[in-house]
């Protein structure tokens, strides 16, 4: 089947199956991807997924850009939690360059990443609720995504595609307003989340629509390469934050929630509990920041970290480093490195091969949405159409990450 050839019908005149083109732009799919489904009544007999509608060749572009210009590309992978992608990329390069990051920067990054995780999970869980008919909960919790975006604005000036942080640290320190907004968020969000849970967790309609729907076994989930909340909902306690701690996650006390059956209800519960754990992590990070020396927001690596403008204009060394960094003339070892972070949807990996040039020789993104989604058509077989829709919502497929 080709792209731009959306309709294929069953040529058999005796057939009683109906062909339904779900997508490429269908309001229920929350993204640009197509599924051609054969329906027997409301039941799906078979399905074919077509993806790639917003493919932007990031891996090819990345081969022609210096490291610091690749951060904006990572924004546009999972654009619901771009800060995690940005940090993952910075940490990959820092691993390549063997940069030691100060603890304070690690903790600031953890705050940003956990806020991003909350905003990602808010989107997924409220949309599951929305697709099962609960508009109130969607509108109610979604305003906190706005509050998180306001925090990003204080930290980096942008909201959605954040380009937050730099290789070697952050581009600026958190200001007082940012901390005030984070504290306000920590006060208000748990109240709303508790109310959100009280509206859904024991809601008869919601449970009937989600519990026991789209169950997945652990073997299947592992074989299809699932990671993140989807895998944890099946009962596998794999989380990159604990299995290979990065950015000082080992300093924090938090739990990895797991489900049992891998159905939509379990995925919803796992994501909700992760939001609680994220709040816990942010609170701990704020506490830990008090004992760290104030004002440090990047590692002391002048050869890799862009100096401030006032230094560039008044200081010869800073001017040289500025020039070299902007031209991509940094001294990076010829090596290859794989680094993974726990994104909103699972293990987000960066496979970077550097040959000593200005740009990566090869950069590959391990995108959890892409790998998770490969099971969708197969698991839809035998499912009701309305169940397949909420199944897709609960997989939180983000088109940007799917297509790269």
């Amino acid at each position, binding site marked *: 089947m*080709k*792209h*731009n050839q959306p309709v294929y019908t069953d040529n058999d005149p005796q057939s009683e199956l109906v062909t339904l083109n779900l997508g490429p732009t269908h309001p229920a799919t929350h993204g640009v991807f197509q599924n051609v489904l054969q329906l027997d009544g409301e039941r799906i007999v078979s399905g074919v997924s077509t*993806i*790639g509608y917003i*493919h932007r*060749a990031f*891996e*090819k*572009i990345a*081969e*022609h*850009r*210096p490291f610091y210009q690749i951060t904006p590309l990572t924004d546009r992978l999972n654009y619901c939690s771009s800060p995690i992608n940005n940090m993952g990329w910075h940490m990959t390069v820092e*691993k*390549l360059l063997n940069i030691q990051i100060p603890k304070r920067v690690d903790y600031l990054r953890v705050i940003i990443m956990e806020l991003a995780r909350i905003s990602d999970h808010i989107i997924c869980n409220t949309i599951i609720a929305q697709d099962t008919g609960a508009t109130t909960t969607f509108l109610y919790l979604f305003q906190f995504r706005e509050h998180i975006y306001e925090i990003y604005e204080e930290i980096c000036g942008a909201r959605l595609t954040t380009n937050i942080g730099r290789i070697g640290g952050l581009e600026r320190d958190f200001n007082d307003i940012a901390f005030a907004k984070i504290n306000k968020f920590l006060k208000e969000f748990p109240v709303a989340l508790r109310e959100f849970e009280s509206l859904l967790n024991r809601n008869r309609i919601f449970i009937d629509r989600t519990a026991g729907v789209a169950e997945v076994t652990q073997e*299947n989930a*592992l*074989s*299809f*390469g699932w990671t993140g909340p989807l895998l944890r909902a099946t009962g*596998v306690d*794999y989380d990159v934050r604990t*299995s*290979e701690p990065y950015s000082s996650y080992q300093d924090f006390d938090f739990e990895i929630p797991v489900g049992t059956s891998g159905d939509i209800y379990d995925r919803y519960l796992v994501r909700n509990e992760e939001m609680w754990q994220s709040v816990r992590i942010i609170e701990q990070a704020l506490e830990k920041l008090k004992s760290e020396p104030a004002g440090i927001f990047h590692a002391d690596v002048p050869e890799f970290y862009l100096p401030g403008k006032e230094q560039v204009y008044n200081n010869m060394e800073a001017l040289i480093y500025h020039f070299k960094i902007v031209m*991509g003339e940094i001294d990076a070892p010829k*090596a*290859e*490195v*794989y680094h*993974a972070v726990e994104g909103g949807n699972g*293990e987000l*990996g960066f*496979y970077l*091969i550097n040959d000593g*040039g*200005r*740009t990566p*020789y*090869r950069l*590959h993104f*391990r995108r959890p949405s*892409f*790998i998770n*989604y*490969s*099971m969708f058509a197969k698991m839809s077989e035998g499912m009701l159409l309305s169940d397949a829709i909420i199944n897709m919502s609960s997989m939180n497929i983000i088109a940007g990450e799917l*297509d*790269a």
Partner: protein
Amino acid sequence: MAKATNTEIIDLLGEKFGEQLFDVTEPYGLLTFSTTKDKVINALTFLKENGKINFNFLTDLTAVHYPEKNQIAVVYHLHSMVSGIRVRLKVFIHENEATIPTASTLWNSANWMERETYDFFGVKFEGHPDLRRILNMDDLGVHPMLKQYPLEDPNRVDKKDEYFGR
């Protein structure tokens, strides 16, 4: 189960495969080795099913093009969630004869990752159930991640690749 270490894995693999695994390195602690394309499925099966090391998760599958050597490297990243160890397995194949047996018989996740690799590098995975392009359109005609294809329109004088580093 005690955590297996890289040295134990090397010993175990050396015992089983001997000279069939070569170029063993550990960049940034990640055990990396190469094999040939007729041995790759054996090696992957052993890594996946051996109870001691248990690399039962295919994290990533991709390829890298080396035009000076006329080679394409197919790269597998495997992960043992039990012991928390990753390994990287590389298979170098000739770019004019870019075929390799499919790993989708071992992991379902390899299905789409191999389609992606085929789409971008033209590597044909023998035995793959459904080897079609996945992200690009079917009539693209080229495999765009190969190094001979420039990023920008080659006819433009203001956007030559050399101005952008490469």
